[in-house]
């Protein structure tokens, strides 16, 4: 083993020790109801495929009361600004076919339940599709419109709109059958250490959730709340943009939003939230 490798290992251990010695603070006991009517399940028994976790928690449970409150009323939730703009896009005709989303799907409420089961297998295309991929497939092949940038503002707002009508429904992503190999690849990526810090998703979000990483309260890294409005950047953030940020923070070259790796990882991480409610667009720090 080279000297350099040893040094990096030591650095990673210091990083891990910093996490481990931080104050421990479990998920809180608060209950989430949005607009006084949409009951959100923020705690559920872990799906059978998770070997090391008994109970899954929404990231909402790890946030401060002030941040939690912002998500409890759609008027207070700034993510809804983006959802409203997507609702306008929903009705806007674009492309050669002279169609809008509404031309085929009528009201966005007709897509209730969709967010809960994505990513999912598309038989005709023979691929695992995320919601963003499906939106672009509609744009390209049904509307004859330009594809949106995978993790761009238009796309993330539209995914937020589609997610919003499924809030309160249980996440229920299939992991077997034709998606199984992609799911297995996602699981590999979840446990694969990356970057100079040699950290995997699991190091923080499975081994250390509930602990403080410096001043931040580590969640389980659930994605039932995506897209999410972050106080940090005051915009709606996609799942893949968040993955990219995390991988970058391990001091690694990251995969690209929309890449096969992140699609597989999204499927796997989504399946770790099976049983929680769809919560997006959520509010986080």
């Amino acid at each position, binding site marked *: 083993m080279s000297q350099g490798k040893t040094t990096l290992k030591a650095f990673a251990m210091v990083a891990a020790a910093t996490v481990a010695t931080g104050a421990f603070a479990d998920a809180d006991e608060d209950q989430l109801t949005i607009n006084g009517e949409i009951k959100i399940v923020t705690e559920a028994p872990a799906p059978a495929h998770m070997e090391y976790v008994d109970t899954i928690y929404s990231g909402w449970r790890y*946030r*401060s*009361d*002030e*941040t939690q*409150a*912002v998500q409890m009323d759609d008027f207070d939730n700034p993510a809804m600004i983006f959802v409203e703009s997507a609702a306008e896009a929903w009705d806007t005709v674009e492309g050669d076919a002279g169609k809008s989303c509404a031309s085929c799907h009528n009201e966005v409420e007709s897509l209730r339940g969709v967010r809960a089961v994505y990513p999912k297998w598309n038989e005709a295309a023979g691929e695992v599709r995320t919601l963003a991929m499906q939106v672009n497939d509609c744009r390209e092949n049904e509307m004859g419109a330009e594809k949106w940038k995978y993790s761009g503002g238009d796309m993330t707002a539209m995914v937020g709109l589609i997610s919003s009508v499924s809030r309160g429904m249980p996440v229920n992503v299939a992991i077997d059958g034709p998606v199984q190999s992609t799911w297995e690849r996602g699981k590999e990526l979840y446990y694969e250490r990356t970057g100079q810090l040699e950290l995997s998703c699991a190091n923080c979000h499975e081994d250390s959730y509930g602990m*403080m*990483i*410096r*001043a*931040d309260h*580590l969640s389980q890294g659930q994605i039932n709340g995506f897209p999410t409005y*972050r*106080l*940090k950047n*005051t915009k709606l953030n996609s799942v893949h943009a968040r993955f990219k*940020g*995390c991988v*970058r*923070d391990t001091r690694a070259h990251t995969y690209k939003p929309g890449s096969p790796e992140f699609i597989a990882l999204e499927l796997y991480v989504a399946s770790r939230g099976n049983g929680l409610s769809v919560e997006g667009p959520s509010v986080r*720090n």
Partner: protein
Amino acid sequence: MELTRRNVVVLGSSAALASAVGMPAFASLTDDAIAAFTGGAETGSGAITLTAPEIAENGNTVPVGVEAPGAVEITLLADGNPTPAVATFKFGPLSAVRGASTRIRLAGTQNVIAVAKMEDGSFQMAKAEVKVTIGGCGG
């Protein structure tokens, strides 16, 4: 300042150092802003309530609320921001509660200060320290 052991200990802590280095200029700007609002009058306390989180998860969006029954005007200040002024609320005849809530930016851990001008011309002041945290891995 008399150099007692306690003072030395306090000065030795990094938090105190940060405030000793960074605060005086801002603090005097804040004092100036308060003086401009009150005209130099004494401020009382007890009839004004300032609600702010003890710890803010992000300084970009910190929820604060202020209420002072009988106030005609309330100004909000943040003594660690590049400029301390945040907002000034003037209440009209149809204001039911002399107060408001909003979301503010704080450049770091600092005091949020509310000063109310009351109907009788007196002033009330409240102060709350908000610790602004930095995310775990900056991501």
